[in-house]
């Protein structure tokens, strides 16, 4: 496989956005007849790289070679004519057109009198047959199909233009495991026909089930290219988060855990089977008074989703929550706030700050919301509150009347932290409070968290930086693939590597259980693919 020249070669690709280097001299190769996984955390540059390859973004430096020839893409049309086709995360089809029209949209067969619909539908049927979907009636509207089938139609649409390269961006995020299996069967058969497939997914098990080779990006940099079978899950995860095993092992748990008898204590918040379809499997969870509980897991593991259910940002569809032993129903953030729970979002810009309001207004907003508009906070009380947190959290510049959008990210985060502290919460949920902020602000926020716990506030701490979680938390809840897979009581001997171990080990068991992969497929993906490829898909048409 590796002897032939690559079908697509991207060399030294750099793309710069104002103030950010999205890609920094990234190399990428894609061979004919392989499934290549592009790995990295959010913000690592995966989608930027894909957009460079599909002509959405112009590259600032570097070169793209397709079949040995250098190409310049000035738009998606150029990339398509070079044989590169993309299926995006959200299916971008027209649901009220027919299946056939969707497959052939923009490539209709034209005759002397405009579009020859009969020939068009025949061509569509051919394209669908290539994926074993010839049982579909191309005249039926697309909306009669399930999401999974629509995804497959999107793929046949991509293949209808005789694509040599097929890019799939998170194709499995809305599919269940049987549907994923069906999709993989089709991908394997396409691969065997010589199509080069670029696959992006947050689901590590799926990457191991389907891919032959993978490229890892981190912070916009090229981290390495590996044969999937040569790289075990440990190594993959630590390369994605950018810490060597050595470094991971060296970091021990700093938080002293007095031998606390959790069983004897009534928890502040107890969740039983709390879940929401498509975001987090039913989960049990106890949070005690004055305790820092870390949620560890990769992005997309369900850690944010779980936290949102506790606050009421999303509504739990099943399970129950008890606060101080009493059952509570938290339907909205206002409910959560009323129950003295506060939630600082990971999405500071869209769900956190109100950009055009001042620091003062942003800081008092939650307290004011709780009191209602008819009971305004007197100016003097506002000043006291705002001054207190500007000083305590060291917000710079210390000007309450400045618009928050003119502050740096770290200081915006401190203002938001102040907003939540001002509500005097019993449980404070911090989702990625230290992401994207400078080291000084990071340390200040970590200190604030530790001090809060000392004062008896319970804190849920969510972070992509495992060592930060290990350093701050008394207990660590480990999440993966939208479910809780473990719980660690922190101690001196607990390290970030143990967390990685749990995440990695769980993958093997879970994957074997669910049947997405079997041992053979894991070791010899190509052979396994041959064995399964001829079987037609089991997915049912949803009509």
């Amino acid at each position, binding site marked *: 496989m590796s002897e032939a020249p690559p079908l697509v070669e991207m060399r030294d690709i750099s793309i710069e956005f104002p103030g950010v280097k999205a890609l920094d001299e990234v190399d990428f190769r894609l061979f004919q007849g392989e499934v290549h996984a592009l790995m990295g955390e959010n913000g690592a540059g995966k989608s930027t790289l894909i957009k460079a390859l599909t002509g959405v973004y112009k590259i600032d430096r570097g070169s793209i070679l397709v079949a040995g020839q250098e190409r310049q893409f000035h738009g998606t049309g150029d990339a398509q004519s070079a044989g590169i086709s993309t299926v995006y995360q959200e299916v971008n089809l027209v649901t009220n057109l027919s299946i056939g029209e969707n497959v052939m949209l923009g490539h209709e067969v034209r005759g002397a009198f405009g579009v020859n619909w009969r020939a068009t539908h025949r061509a569509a049927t051919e394209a669908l047959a290539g994926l074993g979907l010839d049982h579909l009636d191309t005249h039926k509207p697309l909306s009669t199909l399930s999401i999974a089938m629509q995804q497959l139609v999107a793929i046949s649409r991509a293949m209808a233009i005789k694509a040599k390269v097929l890019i799939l961006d998170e194709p499995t995020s809305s599919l269940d495991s049987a549907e994923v299996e069906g999709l993989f069967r089709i991908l394997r058969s396409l691969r065997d026909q010589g199509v080069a497939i670029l696959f992006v997914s947050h689901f590590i098990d799926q990457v191991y089930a389907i891919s032959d080779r993978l490229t890892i990006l981190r912070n916009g940099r090229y981290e390495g290219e590996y044969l999937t079978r040569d790289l075990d899950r440990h190594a993959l995860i630590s390369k994605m988060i950018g810490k060597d095993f050595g470094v991971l092992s060296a970091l021990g748990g700093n938080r002293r855990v007095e031998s606390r008898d959790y069983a004897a204590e009534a928890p502040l918040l107890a969740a039983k089977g709390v879940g929401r379809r498509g975001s987090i499997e039913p989960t049990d969870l106890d949070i005690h008074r004055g305790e820092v509980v870390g949620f560890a897991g990769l992005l997309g593991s369900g850690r944010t989703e779980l936290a949102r259910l506790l606050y009421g940002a999303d509504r739990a569809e099943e399970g129950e929550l008890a606060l101080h032993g009493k059952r509570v129903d938290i339907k909205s953030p206002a409910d959560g706030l009323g129950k003295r729970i506060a939630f600082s979002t990971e999405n500071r810009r*869209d*769900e*956190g700050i109100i*950009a055009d309001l001042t620091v003062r207004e942003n800081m008092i907003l939650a307290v004011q*919301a709780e009191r209602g*508009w008819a009971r*305004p906070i007197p100016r003097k009380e506002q000043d006291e509150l705002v001054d207190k947190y500007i000083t305590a959290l060291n917000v710079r510049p210390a000007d309450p009347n400045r618009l928050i959008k003119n502050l740096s990210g770290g200081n915006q985060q401190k203002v938001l932290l102040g907003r939540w502290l001002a*509500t005097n919460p019993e449980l404070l949920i911090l989702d990625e409070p230290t992401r994207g902020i400078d080291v000084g602000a990071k340390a200040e926020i970590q200190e604030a968290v530790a001090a809060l716990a000392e004062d008896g506030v319970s804190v849920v701490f969510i972070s992509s930086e495992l060592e930060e979680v290990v350093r701050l938390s008394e207990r660590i809840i480990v999440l993966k693939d939208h479910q809780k897979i473990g719980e660690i009581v922190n101690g001196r001997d607990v390290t970030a590597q143990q967390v990685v171990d749990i995440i990695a080990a769980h993958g093997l068991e879970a994957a074997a259980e669910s049947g997405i992969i079997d041992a053979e497929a894991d070791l010899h993906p190509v052979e396994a693919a041959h064995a399964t490829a001829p079987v037609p898909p089991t997915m049912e048409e949803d009509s």
Partner: protein
Amino acid sequence: MRELIRKPFFWGLVAIFALLALNVLKDPTYLALSINPVNGNLVGNVVDILRASAPILMIAVGMALVIATGGIDLSVGSVMAVSGAVSMVFLKDAGQSGSIGVALGAIGLALLVSAVLGAVNGVLVAYVGLQPFISTLIMMLAGRGIAKVITEGQNTSATNDPFRWIANGFVIGLPVVFLFAVAIVIVVALVVRRSALGLMIEAIGINPKASRMAGIRPSGLLLTVYILSAVLAGVAGIMSVGTVMTVDVSRTGYQMELDAILAVVIGGTSLSGGKFSIGGAVVGALLIATLDKTIVFLGISSSATPAFKAIVIIVLCMLQSDRVRSWFVQRRKPPLAKLGTTGVPSKQEKQEVTA
């Protein structure tokens, strides 16, 4: 003065003075005020403008709040008609042309019906989740229908002196209707700015998601704002039928929603919601009233009125637009680097749109 120039409604003030100057050019005595020797009231063109501005002030202030939440209320004109119809029919049926109680009853009922219509808007927007444009568009159409049902399709007149006094009376030489309007605007402004209502409306308008996450319950606020807008429109309806004591269901409040939206935009409140300015809406309403009177005074044919209005308003909006301002700045001193990044792409965008 420098602070005044920076206010978004500065150009609105300039336009008012420009229009007045135009009128003075045509007739040097335009601004002259005289005192009616019989009853001691002020008489003059400016007084007429203030009187005409009262209903526009009402709906403009309501509209400013609705727009600040990121919504729009297209139904204000129709609510004016409904309110006018309710009060006229009530007065006609009650008779008793001198009774203050009857007048108050008419006003109370008219405002109550307006509030109900506003509540329907609010429920559709806040609880059903319809787009404000659609919900209030429906109410705009339905409102005229309701008004017709109330009056049985007839222009309805009534006589009631206290009611008429609201629109046509004078106190200490000034028109009552304008004093009422100013008082209501002040009360609304105080309530909005002294309570946390203004802050929350702005928060919802700027970032609804983040506001929800901060614990604001947007539904109740939206409902309040739509009801307030409709009640203010009801007041405007009473003011406008009171002048002639007749409601013409197809003319009363006709296209007033457009005047209100224009007044708000002239006042510097962005149609995308967020920060709002009640002072700006007041300036906008005064400008529109001045414009209406100027058109009549200059003898511009009534068929050309909308075009003249449009020209004045387009010019104003362009003066307020950041893009146009920066365009002028760039014209004056073209920085080479910036032309490449900001000037050219906007042209390209336009080409793409047309292509």
